[in-house]
């Protein structure tokens, strides 16, 4: 019934910069399309979305050799979102088009932005880390276009550094930490030992865990920074030196119920389960984790999305793919409901009470008007099985249980 066509301008070399630009559109073919275009005699309305990403840092690979190294994370979620949007849009005279730009690590991200704008992008989906995202937001060429942050978890982007034209479909570090803290509260595992890595990301996530502990009445009894630098993932099999190093490293920590490990870039945390001095569960960024999406999640129809994604991308869907998919689907839902492609009409709808998107997480997801963060349930999962979904039942909130995750309206430093 449908066929995906992708038009790519070949990768363009500009000194050390390369920018790949692709236009992907779902094109309806033949009689099926004609018969399904129902009473749609109105002209087709087109929404062009631009996905802006950056090449993977070659020094960063997941620690476990079981985890594939991905070069298309995020953009595959956007592509599936476009396909899902068009499946509905075909009946309503709307067409969604994706243009893509992936910039080299040493390139200026604004070049990628300009390529997308030249290709007609009216909305930007960002697969960028905070610094590059802020460079895009500061670029005058962006104009009044909206950027969906589908990659950067930084709390500050939802707080002091928030912007009226910035929306977030990826959860903040604070939301993830709160989600895990609620589950640990449910378990009554209230004495935490915190072990964090040496990256700036780890500093920020450790801070988020401290805030979550404070908010939900946990006690961080001790903290320690893992003193070693990243190793090549094949250099340490998980037992050579590690088996002796970790018990020595953690044995000085005051007695705790759980060991919270903070290793956002995945360079040491995976070594910790089963190597601790005391027999304690490992939670945080490895072991039992809080995440927006996981392959083990199949409830509430999620199996449909997992299968659709795997058929489409040939691999599992990651949280970054999911965040990009949510951004594209948000626009699709707004366009379909308002029967419009006009920016302000769509934004009014996105921020209004009527916007409710099915995110396969049991509860509808929606945007917080005070900082444009997508409210969403968070999975609490082990490597092979989901253990729970936060918010946990006992954590009440006067407006929405989902607002018990992340900075709430009253405490948010965001002022538009």
């Amino acid at each position, binding site marked *: 019934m449908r066929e995906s066509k992708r038009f790519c301008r070949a990768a363009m070399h500009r000194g050390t910069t390369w920018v790949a630009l692709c236009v992907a559109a779902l094109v309806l073919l033949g009689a099926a399309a004609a018969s399904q275009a129902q009473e749609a005699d109105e002209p087709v309305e087109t929404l062009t979305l631009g996905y802006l990403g950056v090449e993977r840092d070659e020094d960063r690979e997941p620690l476990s050799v079981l985890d594939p190294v991905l070069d298309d994370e995020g953009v595959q979620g956007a592509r599936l979102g476009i396909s899902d949007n068009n*499946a509905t849009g075909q009946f309503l005279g709307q067409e969604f088009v994706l243009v893509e730009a992936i910039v080299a690590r040493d390139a200026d991200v604004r070049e990628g932005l300009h390529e997308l704008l030249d290709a007609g992008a009216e909305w930007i989906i960002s697969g960028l880390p905070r610094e590059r995202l802020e460079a895009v937001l500061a670029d005058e060429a962006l104009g009044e276009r909206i950027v969906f942050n589908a990659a950067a978890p930084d709390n500050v982007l939802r707080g002091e550094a928030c912007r009226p034209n910035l929306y977030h479909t990826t959860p903040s570090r604070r939301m993830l930490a709160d989600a895990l803290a609620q589950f640990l509260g449910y378990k009554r595992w209230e004495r935490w030992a915190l072990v964090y890595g040496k990256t700036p990301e780890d500093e920020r996530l450790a801070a988020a865990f401290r805030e979550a502990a404070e908010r939900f009445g946990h006690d961080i009894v001790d903290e320690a920074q893992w003193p070693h630098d990243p190793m090549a993932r094949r250099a340490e099999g998980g037992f050579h030196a590690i088996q002796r190093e970790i018990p020595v490293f953690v044995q000085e920590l005051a007695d705790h119920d759980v060991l919270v490990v903070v290793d956002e870039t995945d360079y040491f945390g995976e070594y910790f389960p089963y190597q601790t001095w005391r027999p304690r569960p490992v939670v945080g960024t490895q072991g039992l984790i809080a995440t927006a999406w996981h392959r083990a999640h199949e409830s509430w129809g999620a199996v449909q999305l997992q299968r659709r994604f795997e058929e489409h991308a040939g691999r599992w869907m990651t949280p970054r793919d999911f965040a990009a998919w949510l951004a594209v689907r948000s626009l699709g839902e707004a366009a379909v409901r308002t029967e419009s492609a006009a920016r302000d009409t769509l934004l009014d709808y996105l921020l209004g009470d009527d916007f409710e998107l099915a995110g396969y997480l049991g509860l509808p997801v929606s945007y917080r008007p005070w900082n444009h963060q997508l409210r969403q349930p968070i999975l609490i999962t082990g490597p092979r099985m989901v253990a729970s979904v936060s918010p946990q039942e006992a954590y009440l909130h006067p407006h929405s249980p989902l607002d018990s995750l992340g900075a709430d309206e009253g405490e948010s430093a965001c002022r538009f």
Partner: protein
Amino acid sequence: MSFLAHAGTCPRRLLVGGLLAAALLLPLPGHAERVFVSNEKDNTVSVIDADSLEVIETIEVGRRPRAMVLNGDASELFVAVGDDEAIDVIDLESLAVVRSQSAGDEPEVIRVDPNRSYLYVSNEDDDVVSVFDYARRTLVTEVPVGVEPEGLGISPDGRWLVATTETSNMAHVIDLETLEAVHHRLVGARPRHAEFTADGSEVWVSSEIAGIVTILDREDDFQVKHTIRFDVPGVPRETVQAVGVALTADGRHAFVALGPSNRVAVVDQQSYEVLDYLLVGQRVWHLALNDDESRLYTTNGVSGDVTVIDVGEREAIRSIPVGRFPWGVVVAP
């Protein structure tokens, strides 16, 4: 003692068996209805006696049984067993699976044509509604619809089939003469169930994520005529999710299962006004009325039970434990 011991080699069992047999042969004051409940996680169908309100049989079926429907003469029950990509057919005399027929990828909801031996199946993964001839056991055709087809509603005269698609958020109206989708109506987010009114003039479509019911008007090319919203006092809005719908044949009342809010809404079918919210078990999913519409049965997925509601009193009168994750419910005369 010695007599009992001596004579008791078998007579007691014979005696009891004989009484049971005699009881079964006695003409009963109206054959008791039976309520069939599919247990999604147990791969079973529970059979409840509607008089005693007790589970009298548990039938092993294929993997992940969900929607069920009676065949034309109510002699057989079709059960969609999604993970087996099949429909198990239960004979209502023997209460055993007598055959199984293939049903395409991930069959979820099934409906039977009132006029011919056609079975309509929504195939979640293939974005089609499959049409099978269950007498000939052949695939008649596949009708393309939107993404993730789920709910199916058939008009009492067998002229129209309405299929909902969970990701496209649409009700696709299929002309059953030509077997083509001719209208595509936008409804609330994640539409789950479609039900025609007894007179065939309206289709009620429930939307899980939006927590609403959309009414489509048959006379007006199935355009949206009305939207019913639910506001359960003291319950977070996100947990009010509309799923199962049951409509009384007299056109007076509608019942809507509201998922994890653990309530069933009672709605005036004419004015669309919500009259009441009845507290039932946890995550109420689907509903069925009995033949004289005096009782409503609900499946409660999380609490693993069935709530029996007295329709006249609008009151839950009994909770019956069944298997794990009860999903569908059908009352057989």
